[in-house]
């Protein structure tokens, strides 16, 4: 396996995965966040996810990180370094923190019993008395020692870390900064004593450091919305979507927009429909249970042709499920949730950073087609903090075919060549019409005639099916007779798996769908042309994506569906293994 290549001890590694764990109050997450920021200043790419217990506050927590000088698609298969500030309840994370014999595990000898998984893995272990050492430093904390250890073992320049400390703790006063720096120094010194380095290949210190953004997928979705022209949002808090709202609330105010906290999701989607009817590009964000409540009005937006964006940050389902963990199982409801035939747009970001582009594109598409667009992000994308390049500016912005000057004989739902009808915005004289969820004729007058019903159903289908979506419908990479076909957040693991296969000379394609509905059947066929085998990868229990593809298009003869429910994300090595096994 190629991963072993990268792990030759001593040589700098292409990527390093680190976990910092600790029980409530030990500050494992703070240490992780500072490490991420420091790495960003060095010019590295990186990812950090947080895993927490069921407690609202406190309780055990784990910061899971990965760094590389190359862009990172996903978390690694296993961890190179695990630092346990203490071991209390660490077994809760056992399933998430895979160790190998190449792993290095650092624990505090007074931090409780090391869990079984460590000796079982054959990892190299070492002890550092973080708690005791911290006690000797006035104001010193054990998590800062852990942070020093991590930076030391990784071989990151300490100057960048200190800059982070100054920025983050500066407001708490000099003492806090000094104490933390002292603790970090102790950690660095302890690391230096060990024979357990996990050195990371970093951009040359002389070269100009590449600029990095540090952003979560939820923040990126908010930023994409604003870039895309969204100026009104209404929403009801729900895990793991709340951060989109909390980021948007002040941000929208700054750009002349507004966010309204609604009494529930029934209200939030209707507020958004109302604002969009009034001419303002509008968005709401939620998770599965909230999307379920929005379904009736999603159908209204479809029938009345009101553009809106609904970001669904998916979590484990069904029902309340696992609110804090990721899954892709809202695909069905997003595509097929409405009663009646209600064609609308469904999109999915392909990485943390892509939450920005995809949300922006969704706003653009919704407005262009006067249809609702559902963006399927998920807990992994939304809550992972990533170090990325500044996302490129793209021209996609909300642009609605609107009637803005006085008209005569206006027909709101006129049948046009592109099937999109110019929309009169309240205030425009002569444009008065009544938007309606009842079947209607071209003028919007309710009708139960078969002819009107069919004409408007055709129109709403055609406008989204004949639109030219360009290249963005999917990310397509590599070549070969075997393809990994996936979507959304599973793109990361799939991309890394394909890269590893390529390292071993095994050619494979990656086809990752950003536009889920309408499915680009012809383009997909072209992307898969010449493929003999297709592995369909997704994070659902029942294989929803695979079933959807089957329903809509003819796949090559040899297709395998590789899927499982959350919360454990499918790892690159699992996809890689599926392909290798299939070949043999």
């Amino acid at each position, binding site marked *: 396996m190629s991963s072993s290549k990268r792990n030759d001890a001593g040589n700098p590694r292409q990527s390093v995965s680190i976990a910092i764990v600790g029980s409530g109050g030990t500050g494992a997450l703070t240490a992780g966040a500072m490490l991420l*920021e420091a790495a*960003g*200043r060095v010019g590295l790419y990186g990812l950090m996810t947080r895993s927490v217990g069921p407690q609202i506050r406190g309780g055990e927590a784990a910061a899971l990180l990965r760094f590389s000088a190359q862009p990172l698609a996903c978390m690694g298969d296993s961890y190179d370094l695990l630092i346990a500030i203490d071991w209390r309840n660490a077994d809760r994370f056992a399933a998430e923190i895979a160790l190998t014999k190449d792993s290095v595990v650092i624990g505090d000898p007074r931090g409780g019993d090391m869990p079984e998984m460590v000796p079982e893995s054959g990892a190299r272990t070492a002890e550092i008395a973080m708690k005791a050492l911290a006690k000797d430093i006035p104001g010193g904390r054990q998590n800062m020692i852990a942070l020093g250890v991590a930076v030391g073992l990784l071989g990151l320049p300490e100057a960048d870390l200190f800059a982070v400390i100054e920025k983050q703790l500066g407001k708490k006063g000099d003492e806090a900064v000094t104490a933390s720096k002292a603790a970090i120094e102790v950690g660095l010194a302890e690391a230096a004593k060990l024979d357990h380095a996990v050195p990371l290949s970093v951009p040359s210190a002389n070269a100009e450091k590449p*600029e*990095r*953004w*540090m952003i979560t997928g939820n*923040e990126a979705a908010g*930023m994409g919305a*604003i*870039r895309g022209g969204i*100026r*009104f949002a*209404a929403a009801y808090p729900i895990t793991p979507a709340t951060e989109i709202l909390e980021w948007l609330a002040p*941000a929208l*105010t*700054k*750009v*002349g*927009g*507004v966010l*309204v906290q*609604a*009494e*529930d999701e*029934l*209200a*939030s989607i*209707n*507020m*958004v*429909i*109302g*604002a969009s*009817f*009034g*001419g303002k590009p*509008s968005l709401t964000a939620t998770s599965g249970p909230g999307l379920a409540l929005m379904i*009736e*009005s999603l159908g*209204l937006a479809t029938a*009345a042709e009101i553009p809106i964006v609904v970001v669904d940050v998916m979590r484990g389902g069904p029902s309340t499920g696992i609110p804090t963990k990721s899954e892709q199982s809202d695909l069905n409801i997003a595509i097929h949730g409405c009663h009646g035939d209600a064609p609308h747009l469904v999109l999915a970001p392909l990485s943390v950073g892509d939450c920005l582009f995809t949300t922006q594109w969704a706003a653009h598409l919704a407005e262009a087609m006067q249809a609702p667009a559902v963006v399927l992000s998920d807990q992994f994308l939304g809550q992972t903090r990533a*170090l990325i390049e*500044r996302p490129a500016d793209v021209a996609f912005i909300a642009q609605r075919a609107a009637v803005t000057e006085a008209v005569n004989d206006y027909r709101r739902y006129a049948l046009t060549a592109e099937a999109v009808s110019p929309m*009169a915005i*309240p*205030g*425009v*004289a*002569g*444009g*008065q019409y*009544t*938007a*309606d*969820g*009842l079947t209607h004729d071209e003028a*919007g*007058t*309710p009708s139960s005639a078969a002819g009107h019903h069919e004409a408007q159903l055709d129109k709403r289908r055609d406008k989204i099916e004949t639109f030219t979506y360009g290249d963005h419908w999917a990310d397509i990479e590599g070549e070969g007779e075997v393809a990994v076909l996936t979507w959304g957040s599973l793109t990361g693991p799939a991309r890394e798996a394909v890269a590893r296969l390529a390292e071993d000379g095994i050619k494979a394609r990656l086809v990752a769908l950003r536009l889920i509905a309408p499915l680009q059947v012809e383009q997909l066929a072209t992307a898969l042309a010449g493929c003999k085998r297709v592995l369909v990868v997704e994070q659902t229990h029942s294989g929803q994506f695979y079933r959807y593809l089957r329903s809509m298009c003819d796949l090559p003869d040899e297709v395998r569906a590789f899927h499982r429910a959350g919360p454990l994300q499918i790892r690159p090595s699992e996809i890689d293994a599926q392909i290798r096994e299939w070949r043999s």
Partner: protein
Amino acid sequence: MSKAQAVAYKQGDYKSKVKPIWCPGCGDYHVLISITRALAEIGVAPEDVAVISGIGCSSRIPAYTNCYGFHGVHGRSLALAAGLKVARPDLTVLITSGDGDGFSIGGNHFLHACRRNVDMTYIVMDNRVYGMTKGQPSPTTEPDWDSALSPGGTGLRPFHPLVIALASGANFVARTFSGDPNGTARVLVEAIRHPGFSFVEILSPCVTFRPDEKEWKNMVHTAPVEPTDDAARAARRIMTDDGFNLGVLYRGHRAPYQPEIGTASVDVADLEEAFLL
């Protein structure tokens, strides 16, 4: 987009050509008249008015006006209207609903609309029945009213929509009778002009499923006392009146909810700065 005040509008300017589906004699015909009359009196341009509704006989009004309209889904009109008004404070926003749409399925938005106090006018045609679905009891129906769905009556005490409105913070509360379109129009003018969330309950008979309501014309009477700005007092009065007391019952002074919109202070690019390390 507001129009020159100089234009004088006539009532007919607010009526569309769509033929109502209502039964002959339905009280809602008069409500339509009252609304158009009130708008003409105020003189706001038809294209600057939005009439928002849910589903029900009463909720059909938007398409019968010559304003912008939205006939949405059952029970959600207040939320849709609030989104519209917050995004477009320049518009005059009316919501037309029924006792089922507004107080049964829509009860939560009613509570929160009163509390949020967005500057719009909520008109509920109360006929104490679900007309559109052919005669089931609504929250305002008398406990002993016999129907197929509740033989012998529901046994439930009817709702006091006006009291709930006061308890949850409505800024203007009135009751009128559809059979008095002039009186109703007068109250609507006041309600529309009053800042914040105004609630007008219009007793509007359903001649088909509640023929007994034809008697209402003999039962209504004008509120014997002046409107108050003390919500607790107003509530107490309504809780103890006979339900046929007409007029403006409460005028409050709460400032409407209207976040500033359209006044950008920073560039989109500025927002991005926060992500840069």
